[in-house]
C-alpha cells in the first residue's frame, strides 16, 4: 500500500467524488495523493490557495503545512524536511520563484527530491499580480546559477493540476531532483469539475534508501537517498563534494564528475521523462505548439482551422523541461511553419527555433488576458 492508514482512509473517502475546485486546490490534493507530508509556503497571488487547501487538509493526514516568514525560508524548510525523511513541496509565483532560485540550485546540487509549484503571473517584478502569464519558462530552466538540468511540467486543466502534481513527485523521487510544476494564474484560479482518483489506482515512485556502505552521492547514475537519524552520519553540502558527501573544491575531476552525473540523470533519461500530446494529421503543413493555459484556445483554433480544411498539426507540451527536442525536430521536418502562442514575448518559440529549420512564428500576448480562439486562428491563417 502506498499510504499510511490515516491517509488511505482519507483518500478512500474522496475516491470517485466529483469536486468543483480551483487549479491551486487540485495541486494541493495532488500533493496529498502523492504522499506529501510537508508543505512550507508563503502567501502570494495567485498561489496562496495551494497553501490554504493544504493548511486545511494536511493535518487530517498527519502532515504539516507551515507558513514560513518568506519564500526562501519556505523552500529551505521543505529541503530540510526531505532530508529528515519527508516528502515536501512549496508553491509560489514569479517574485517568490525568483527568491527561491538559490535554494533550487541547492536541491539540484544535493540531489534533493522536491516539488516547486510556480503559478505564473504577469511580470517582471510585481507586474500584474492577479493576472496570468507564461513568463517564467526560461527562468524555470536557468533561474539558478551554474550548469544544471531541470524538470518542469505544465498542466492545462484543473484535473491535470492534480495528476501532474503526483507526476512531479514521482519524477522527483525517480531522478532525485527538484521538479517544477509550471502552472499559471489562469489554470490556478480556474474552477473546473474534477474526479478524485481511487488511491489504489495511484502509482507512486518510492524513495530508494542506501544500504550500509552505499554512496548517496555517486556510485550509480541516480544514487539512493538516506534519512537523517539512522546513524549514517551523512554529510550533505551545496559545495562540490566527493561521493562520500565531503566537500572537495580543489580537485577538478571531482567537480567535473559530479556535475556531469547530475546533468546526465535527466539528460540521459529524456525519453522516459518527456510527455507531449500529439495530434498530427496525415499531411500536416503547419503546426501549432502550445502548453499550459494557452493550449486550450490553441487547440480550439486548430479545430476551427481544420474545419476550413487547413492542414494543421497540433502539439501540446506537457513536459517543458527537459525540452522535447526530438518531437520538435520531427515536427520541424514535416511542416513549413510552426506557430507558438504564448503568454510571453517568445520563450518556448526561441527554444523551438534551435531545433528546426522551418519558420517559427511566435503568437505572443502579454497583459494578463489569455489568447482567444479567434486571435490564434487569425494568426494561423495569415
Amino acid at each position, binding site marked *: 500500500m502506498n499510504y499510511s492508514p490515516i491517509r488511505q482512509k482519507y483518500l478512500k473517502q474522496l475516491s470517485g467524488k466529483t469536486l468543483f475546485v480551483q487549479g491551486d486546490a487540485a495541486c494541493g490534493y495532488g500533493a496529498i495523493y502523492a504522499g506529501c507530508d510537508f508543505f*512550507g509556503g508563503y502567501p502570494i497571488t495567485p498561489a496562496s490557495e495551494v497553501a490554504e487547501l493544504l493548511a486545511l487538509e494536511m493535518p487530517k493526514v498527519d502532515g504539516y503545512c507551515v507558513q514560513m516568514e518568506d519564500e526562501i525560508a519556505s523552500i529551505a524548510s*521543505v529541503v530540510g524536511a526531505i532530508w*529528515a525523511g519527508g516528502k515536501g513541496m512549496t508553491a509560489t509565483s514569479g517574485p517568490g520563484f525568483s527568491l527561491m532560485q538559490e535554494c533550487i540550485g541547492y536541491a539540484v546540487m544535493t540531489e534533493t527530491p522536491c516539488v516547486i509549484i510556480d503559478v505564473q503571473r504577469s511580470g517582471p517584478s510585481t507586474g500584474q499580480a492577479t493576472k496570468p502569464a507564461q513568463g517564467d519558462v526560461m527562468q524555470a530552466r536557468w533561474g539558478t546559477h551554474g550548469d544544471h538540468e531541470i524538470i518542469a511540467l505544465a498542466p492545462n486543466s484543473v484535473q491535470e493540476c492534480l495528476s501532474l502534481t503526483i507526476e512531479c513527485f514521482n519524477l522527483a523521487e525517480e531522478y532525485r531532483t527538484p521538479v517544477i510544476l509550471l502552472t499559471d494564474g489562469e489554470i490556478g484560479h480556474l474552477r473546473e469539475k474534477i474526479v478524485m482518483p481511487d488511491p489504489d489506482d495511484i502509482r507512486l515512485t518510492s524513495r530508494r534508501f542506501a544500504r550500509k556502505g552505499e554512496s548517496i552521492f555517486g556510485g550509480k547514475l541516480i544514487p539512493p537517498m538516506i534519512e*537523517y537519524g539512522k546513524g*549514517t552520519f551523512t554529510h550533505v553540502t551545496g559545495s562540490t563534494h566527493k561521493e562520500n558527501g565531503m566537500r572537495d573544491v580543489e580537485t577538478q575531476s571531482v567537480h567535473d564528475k559530479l556535475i556531469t552525473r547530475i546533468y546526465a540523470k535527466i539528460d540521459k533519461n529524456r525519453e522516459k521523462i518527456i510527455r507531449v500530446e500529439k495530434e498530427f494529421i496525415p499531411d500536416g503543413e503547419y503546426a501549432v505548439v502550445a502548453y499550459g493555459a494557452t493550449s486550450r484556445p490553441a487547440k480550439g483554433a486548430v479545430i476551427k482551422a481544420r474545419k476550413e480544411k487547413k492542414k494543421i498539426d497540433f502539439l501540446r507540451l506537457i513536459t517543458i523541461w527537459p525540452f522535447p527536442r526530438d518531437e520538435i525536430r520531427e515536427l520541424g521536418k514535416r511542416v513549413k511553419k510552426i506557430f507558438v502562442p504564448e503568454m510571453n514575448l517568445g520563450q518556448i518559440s526561441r527554444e523551438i527555433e534551435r531545433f528546426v529549420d522551418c519558420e517559427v512564428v511566435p503568437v505572443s500576448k502579454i497583459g494578463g488576458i489569455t489568447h482567444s480562439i479567434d486571435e490564434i486562428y487569425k494568426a494561423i491563417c495569415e
Partner: protein
Amino acid sequence: MSKKHPLLKYLREEILPTVFCTGCGGGTVLNVYAHAIDELGIDPTTIVSVTGIGCSSWIPSPYYKADTLHVLHGRAIAFATGVKIKKPDMKIIVIAGDGDIAAIGGNHLIHAARRNIGLTVFLINNSIYAMTGGQASPSTPQGVPATTTPYGNPEPSFDFTQLAVASGASYAARWTTYHVFSLLKSMKKAITRKGFSFVEIISQCPVSYGKMVGKRTASDFLRLYKESSINIKKAASMKEEELENKIVIGEFVDKEREEFTEALRKINKRVQ
C-alpha cells in the same frame, strides 16, 4: 599515557588537524561543544547539525561527526526548521557565525525564536566576515577599519542576544571563548531545553579581525574578554556609561513555553 584526546571520537578524525587559523576561537567552541555532548551522554546519532557558510560553519561541517546539513549562507535556521518538524525528537543544532545567522539570516533567527521551535543555535560572534577576508559584519564595532569600511565602520553594532530575547527565545545567553566553563554549562542547558535556545559566543579571530584592531594572537583577545566582561546580574545595577565597551555575559532569559512542533502536533491530533 595516551596522547589523543578521548573526545576526538566525536569529530571526523580522519580530516584533522582543523583548517582553523592558529588560536581560532572556533576551535575552542568545537572543543567545548564536544565536551557538552559527552557530558550530557547524548548519542550523536540523535543529532543533526545544520549550518551555513563561514569559518564558524566549519565547526559542525565537516568537523563534528553527526548527520550534517551544510546549506546556503544565512539559511541554516530555515532548513533546520523543516528538519525539526519532521524529526521533533532529534537534537537539531545550528552552529554558525554572526554574518550568517544575524545579517543575511536575521529574518530566520527572529521568526524561529518567535515560533519557539526547538532548535539550539550557537552564534559564533567574531565580529567579522572572516572567511571572505575581513569584511565588516553587523557586530563589527563602530570605527573599525574592515576591508569594506576602510575609513572606519560608520555603523553601530548589534546585540544579538537581546535580539533573540526580544524575538521570544526560551533560552538566551552570551559567553566568550575565555569563559569556557560557563560556556560549557550554558551549551548543555541550550541543548537540553525544549524550546528555541540561543547562545552567542564571542570568539576570537586573530587573523581577519585581529589585524584590523591590532590584536594578532588569541591570548590578546582572551585577555580582553576576561577583563571587559561583566556578568548580567552585576550589569543590571550599573549605569550605561559604566557598561560602555564592556561585554555583558550570562543568561539573559531562561523560561520554557510551548514549543512549535508541539503546537503543530496538537493541531493534528485535534483535527484527526
